């Protein structure tokens, strides 16, 4: 009798199947606006929202209970057994804001769920790489950008997926996305851009080596020399992070051997912004520390020696930082000792 009043709680797999069915329904009926169907569609929407919320609470737990790993594994397995992720991504625009947020968090969490100590999300995405194209194009739609962006950042935690994105044509688009006027979206795009260029060391090193020419040409002209303060600030910081990474030593050597790059960095050192100056210093010091400076670099440094030394004489930061002081002293020493060559 009890069963009549209180239905047995559904298993995680059942919840996923129901979610999928509803998504399929919505996918088919998204464009039809027949008057009779409208109400039915609303009902299905509400049901879907509830289901996605339930999925979320299985994965994250709630204030009373921790997530159960067995349930999470079941859910994950069922989710990737069929094309649920693709459906969810394509139906996202039709969902309400709250459901979009829940869905995003579900997708994010699934990327880290292991089933039999395998990240099955990675296998799924590898077979469905075109989903990345959809997620990236989200940056062109203000209503979807933050949701797709958050999903995308989770997906590129998988190395193969990150490599796919790095090597795709989309990489060029990021130079525009991170300068979009809308701050939310632009900063989300730069977070993704940074993740792509710092997370998987060997992949990044390979990408930068192969694509050095176009990448740094774009990087210099569009980002480091951007009109936009925040773009310059983030770009010079990220440049420092990339070049100082041991995996990118080869790329670094190449970068600090170019006089054009030196000129750009010297301009950034002269900025009125303290933050940009400091970040630029962390890159500039590499030019100075290079023990095999090409003659053109040497001659620029020698020609500007007194100015540079005077500049560093007054270059201070608010915080006490021994490393910074040591670096600065080293740079001064290097530049003071330079001999003009032929």
């Amino acid at each position, binding site marked *: 009798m009890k069963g009549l009043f209180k239905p047995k709680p559904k298993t995680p797999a059942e919840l996923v199947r129901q979610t999928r069915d509803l998504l399929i329904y919505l996918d088919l009926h998204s464009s039809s606006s027949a008057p009779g169907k409208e109400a039915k569609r609303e009902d299905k929407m509400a049901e879907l929202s509830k289901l996605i919320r339930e999925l979320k609470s299985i994965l994250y737990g709630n204030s009373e209970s921790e997530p159960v790993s067995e349930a999470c594994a079941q859910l994950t397995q069922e989710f990737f057994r069929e094309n649920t992720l693709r459906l969810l991504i394509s139906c996202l625009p039709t969902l309400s804001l709250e459901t979009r947020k829940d869905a995003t968090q579900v997708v*994010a969490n699934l990327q880290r769920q292991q089933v039999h100590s395998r990240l099955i999300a990675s296998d799924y995405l590898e077979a469905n790489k075109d989903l990345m194209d959809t997620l990236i194009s989200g940056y062109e739609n203000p209503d979807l950008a*933050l949701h797709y962006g958050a999903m995308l950042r989770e997906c590129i935690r998988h190395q193969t997926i990150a490599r796919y994105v790095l090597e795709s044509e989309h990489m060029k688009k990021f130079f525009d996305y991170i300068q979009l006027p809308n701050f939310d979206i632009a900063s989300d795009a730069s*977070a993704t851009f940074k993740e792509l260029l710092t997370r998987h060391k060997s992949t990044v090193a390979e990408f930068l080596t192969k694509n050095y020419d176009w990448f740094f040409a774009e990087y210099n002209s569009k980002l480091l020399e951007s009109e936009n303060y925040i773009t310059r600030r*983030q770009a010079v910081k990220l440049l420092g992070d990339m070049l100082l990474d041991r995996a990118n030593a080869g790329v670094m050597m190449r970068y600090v051997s170019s006089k054009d790059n030196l000129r750009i960095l010297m301009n950034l050192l002269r900025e009125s912004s303290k933050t940009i100056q400091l970040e630029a210093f962390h890159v500039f010091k590499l030019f100075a520390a290079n023990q095999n400076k090409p003659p053109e670099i040497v001659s620029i440094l020698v020609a500007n020696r007194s100015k540079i030394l005077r500049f560093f004489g007054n270059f201070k930061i608010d915080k006490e930082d021994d490393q910074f002081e040591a670096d600065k002293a080293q740079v001064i020493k290097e530049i003071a000792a330079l001999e003009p060559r032929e």
Partner: protein
Amino acid sequence: MASQVHQQETNMPSYPLDPTSYKILQKIGNGVSATVYKAACLPMNSSIVAIKAIDLERSRANLDNVRREAKAMTLLSHPNILKAHCSFTVDHYLWVVMPFMSAGSLHSIISSSFPDGLNETSIAVVLKEILNALLYLHDQGHLHRDIKAGNILVDSDGSVKLTDFGVSASIHEPNSSNSSSCFSSSMSFMLNELAGTPYWMAPEVIHSHIGYSFKADIWSFGITALELAHGRPPLSHLPPWKSLFMRITNRLRPCDYEKGKKDKNKKFSKNFRDMVASCLATDPLRRPNAGKLLKHSFFKNCKNVDFLVKNMLNGLPPVEERYYRECLNFPDQSAANIDGNEDDSEEAGPVEKHRRISGWNFNEEAFQLVPVFPTERSVDSNVAKEAGFFKEESIDKREQRRIMRNENPSAESSFSFWEGEAQDRTTVDEPITGATQEGEHNLDEAQHRTTVDEPIIGATQEEVTEVGVDVIKSGEERVAMEEHIAAIKSTAGEAIRRTALAAKMMPYLMTLLESLDDQRLAVANLIFEIKGEEVVISHQQQLQHAVSRLTLQLEKEKTKSAQLERELEVLKWKYAEKDRDDPSEDVNETRTATDSNTTNDQ
């Protein structure tokens, strides 16, 4: 014109993303790194908006915080949460365009028209709205972390909205710096980062071994209730930073709300007192969550927001006028006013770790909050009196510092018993440097401090007896001292053993300290010879010069102390053979202790 037509055609107006579309009308608030303006959005019939201009140069390391705030304000959608229209950068400012809330913040309303607090009915209305916001936020996995009247805005129709997500945190937004494991479940989500505004901060935020979570917002909510009831938060007669320190050094019993004003006509209902008391439970687990609080009988039969329009907003001067008047009253406001305004962002918030508070007593009858500190001993006054105590105390102090360091490496320099200026790095050394040129200065300051303190201590004691909390009289200094050590012992399980060890090591450490002091004296003499009489000019500058000179000397000193350390190690090994404690642990110990000495000297 064309765009205007376009805006009207679509129901969802989208606000323009360039500064030329807005006309700044007036400044209506400012904080450390942001200013809030009232502005007109020209393409939208000059509709009125508020623009918060965040100076990105001033929030240097924290671009991520800014991003999180903007994102939160875009994605959170609740009638009691202020949603941003849009945000974009204008040179090194981030402009966040928001709805204009014409009645301003509750802080501003209270300080202009209700200096002694609101009536209970209004409080209930406001708090209920805020609880709805909190329920939603927590359900979304967000912690606000800066709940206070200054962050609650009211519109002319009485609607109440929570704002300022500058220091908020989310379990779904992995942030390397703020949480132990970023992708944890809702239940075990824990933060360690210190954030918020001091008066409103929960004890576990200031100090906890396991971190804090959603219940920290509930504490701040409780403090906000007191703020609305009394016109200001507990302990606020002390200026935020110095005072935070004052109440530590001077064994203040900061019973709040000075007597003159004290609740002459104010009788708060049992329900209200009970509700606030539950929020201010020291143990976060014993505080109710937002959902439970909403069901509290205090919120039964709660009036709706129209009540606020009639009883609170009626006759209220416009927000810009209030701001203007406030500026007249406090001309150096931008510098002085770090809490009050609706917009103060992360820099007013996150603070250095200063002090552990062992607990709080909420006195339900008096409707006040009384913190309990593990130390009840005023050190300043005793340094002069009890010279014999000095060394013991400094060892003790180092011990405590070391514990602090273990927990939070970044806080090491801000912890000192002697100094009012916790943020002043250099002064931390003074007690140890003792004999150097600052000696004079130090003494002066100590004297100065004691004279300042006396009336406060006097006043406090009176208050204390009135409120009926346990008082430790000045005669009981030694007992307090013991308590102090006991308190340190209890802070961490590991620390117990260390303290015990440290006590055994005391003679050795004292020898070490003495020889270090001798060396410092020599250095000080040297400086004196070089510098001669000039020493008096500007303490700060002088000190900087001295520090740079000292750096060279320090190198030598470090070598010496390294030698001493080795000697000490030998001694300790011998000692440890007699003792059954783990000798290797022991060695590490002293090393950190000596290290802390040397680093503090720099």
